[in-house]
């Protein structure tokens, strides 16, 4: 396909090349493997343990996936640009505890205002990461490893031994994670809206496409006049805002928020993105894939529990999944590289 000879005599691809190209483009989708894996997993678990797919069971699956899903979407924005934010767990913790504090201090505060404050707080934390990465020109891995501990430290200092419980918060706030609409918990619907909105932004706007270009080849992106630093900074800010949203939802969904809320979450989030087909070297993958990856990871945990598999095995299986996703990616790119060499070798 890569050689000029091959298609020299072939008819030019018509805009409507028909069903074959439609099938081909589905097969080329990076999200396909994770979708198949998810379907298989649910099917097998259901066949062994039919209780897995009761209305309550499905609702639990979705609720479990919601927060990781939102975080994975934000993380994907960064991974696509060859960056990463390891401080998301700490940011979520700070915002979740902040949410508890707001309700404790001002019991009648409008819920929408809490969302706005939480997202703004998250955006601020994300912007700090973004500023450090783009100004100091230090790899994001190192910067956000630092802020992971800084933000966690702030959370510890702020919360001390204090915890806020669901009882401290208005009932309508907690109801967001209980009430359903068309069988979907409200917060899950919110997460789905976020996924769709960000997906459209990434595929349908120039700044969104710029993020892919930056991750695909940062030097070329600079040479093309793409404002690399600005875009990367904004991606960090958006990721922070999404972590803030996840923090508020965490406070709605879970009973207690305190100094350790969200600890260790960053690795699950990165894993979800990678399993969902987001290339860790940047440039390709989609937020939809990352969201599916989040659903897959949380569903595996539930289904292994439903199948009474030992908890220790669960982590190992998640690990194997991550390795599989990365190996598939590597093999695919090595293959294209080899093809290229052979096609160039023709005339020497």
């Amino acid at each position, binding site marked *: 396909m890569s050689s000029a000879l091959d298609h020299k005599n072939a008819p*030019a691809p018509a805009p409507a090349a028909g069903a074959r190209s439609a099938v081909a483009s589905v097969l080329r989708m990076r999200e396909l493997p994770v979708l198949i894996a998810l379907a298989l997993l649910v099917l097998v678990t259901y066949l062994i343990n039919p209780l897995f797919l009761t209305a309550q069971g499905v609702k639990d699956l979705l609720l479990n996936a919601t927060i990781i899903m939102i975080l994975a979407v934000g993380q994907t924005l960064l991974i696509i640009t060859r960056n990463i934010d390891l401080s998301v767990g700490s940011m979520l913790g700070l915002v979740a505890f902040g949410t508890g504090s707001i309700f404790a201090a001002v019991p009648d505060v409008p819920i929408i205002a809490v969302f706005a404050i939480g997202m703004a707080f998250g955006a601020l934390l994300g912007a700090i990461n973004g500023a450090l990465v783009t100004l100091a020109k230090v790899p994001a891995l190192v910067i956000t490893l630092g802020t992971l501990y800084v933000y966690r430290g702030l959370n510890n200092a702020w919360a001390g031994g204090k915890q806020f419980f669901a009882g401290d918060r208005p009932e309508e706030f907690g109801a967001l994670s209980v009430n359903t609409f068309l069988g979907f918990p409200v917060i899950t619907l919110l997460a789905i809206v976020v996924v769709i909105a960000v997906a459209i932004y990434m595929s349908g706007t120039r700044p969104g496409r710029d993020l892919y270009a930056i991750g695909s080849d940062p030097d070329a992106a600079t040479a093309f006049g793409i404002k690399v630093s600005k875009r990367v900074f904004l991606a960090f800010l958006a990721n922070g805002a999404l972590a803030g949203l996840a923090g508020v939802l965490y406070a709605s969904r879970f009973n207690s928020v305190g100094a350790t809320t969200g600890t260790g979450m960053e690795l699950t989030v990165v894993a979800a993105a990678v399993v969902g087909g987001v*290339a860790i070297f940047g440039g390709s993958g989609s937020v939809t894939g990352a969201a599916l990856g989040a659903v897959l990871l949380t569903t595996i945990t539930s289904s292994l529990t439903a199948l009474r598999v030992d908890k220790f095995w669960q982590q190992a299986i998640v690990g194997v999944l991550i390795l599989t996703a990365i190996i598939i990616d590597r093999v695919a790119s090595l293959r294209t590289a080899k093809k290229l060499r*052979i096609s160039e070798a023709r*005339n*020497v």
Partner: protein
Amino acid sequence: MQQTHSSRSGPSEGEQVPVLSLSHAAKTFGPVVALADGTIHIEAGEIHALVGENGAGKSTLVKILAGLHHPDSGDFQVAGHTVQFRNVAESKDAGISVIYQEPTLFPDLSVAENIFIGRQPKGRFGLISKATMVREAHKLFERLGVPIDPTRIAEGLSIADQQIIEIAKAISLDAKVLVMDEPTAALSGVEVDRLFSVARSLRDRGTGILFISHRFDEVFDLCDRITVMRDGRYISTHRTADVTVDQIVREMVGRDIGALFPKTPAEIGGVVLKVDGLSRAGVFRDISFEVRAGEIVALAGLVGAGRTEVARAVFGIDPYDAGAITFDGRTLKPRNPQVAITAGMGFVPEDRRKQGLVMDLSVARNVTLTLRNKYTTAGLINGAAERRAAQEWSKRLQVKTGSQEYAVSTLSGGNQQKVVLAKWLATDPRLLIIDEPTRGIDVGTKSEVHRLISDLAGRGIAILMISSELPEVLGMADRVLVMREGRITAELDRADANPESVMHAATSSAGGTL
């Protein structure tokens, strides 16, 4: 499609204002003069060739046109207006598109998106209309007569197709001037033909094309005029019809090869390295040669001819598909540098910073890197012994450093090269492969490095030297092997090697005049 009638005449004859005109541009980097007098006038509707040896200043000139470098002085006009580009975007806006030998596309994005990145057509709700983008890309390829699927990702495209995509981009940007920097170096025959027919149709539509190539058959086949550069200076511009290949070659190399490169006569001994029928698909083919003790054999040719690749295969870094390498009468196992080192081979790579040295380690540690086992007791490095050995070699090679403990990155290019040489000499090699021994080294240190290499040969070490600098090749080598496109096209004795014979073998496909 409007037909522009080009006069195809020199600037002196016509009234026409050149679409691009650079006069007496100069560019220096520190003490290095990259371009002393960059002059070129390109007219609308002509294909203009720029020729010159490696290091003649062509790349610098191209980078000035592209807005990557800013000339220190000189006059630069596009369509009669003086311009001063601060960056690539401004050059593009002025209507100049540059297509490099290996274009930089975004491998993960679709072909259509690569053409329109940053200017994607918008459709409903202000969102990018992929359908329009693909349709537009498709139209461009149709106009170029090259069917490339606009929806596929750029990764895995052949170089030829990548160049076509760059040309499509240039057309969609309405480029007035298209600069092609050695576009054919990585292309096959069919692909070259396709590129040329695209170039001709662009010319007929009034685009001015600057075509840089080392292949004279192509230059004479395609171009209307030829500008020759040498040593960073403009030499001449001719109409293609008025000159011969010989004339151009003479202008390209016409300078004295002074006594700058003293190869002291050395006694030539037995065969140390014998390479027989070495081939690697797509890289080099049927490479056979010998290097004897005390002999300096130069591998000459143009950048990209496959010289470094041959050296890497000989040293065991890269694999090869066929052939054999014999060292001191023993056949060497392929793909194993350790075997090559143990047998007595050393390799001084072209890119010192990346491959030859560990930049953050001390001079001493770098010199003894190849000898770790010799200065190790019970698995631990003996620091004192290491320092002594390093001291001795640094003294012999006159490495100028404040202390053996300084990081190598603090040394000058020439002294770094000496450290690399010291590193290999400490292993007492029978053969040294040296890739571009004096690249990026100032003139003074250059002759020191040359003297050093000559000394080594005098002590009976066999030297295989890769060099793109003709004077270096002619001054140093006992024998010159010329490579072109992965093959050895000529083997010349010192007496027969002159600028013309080497350049001919390196560039022309006929090559029969030797």
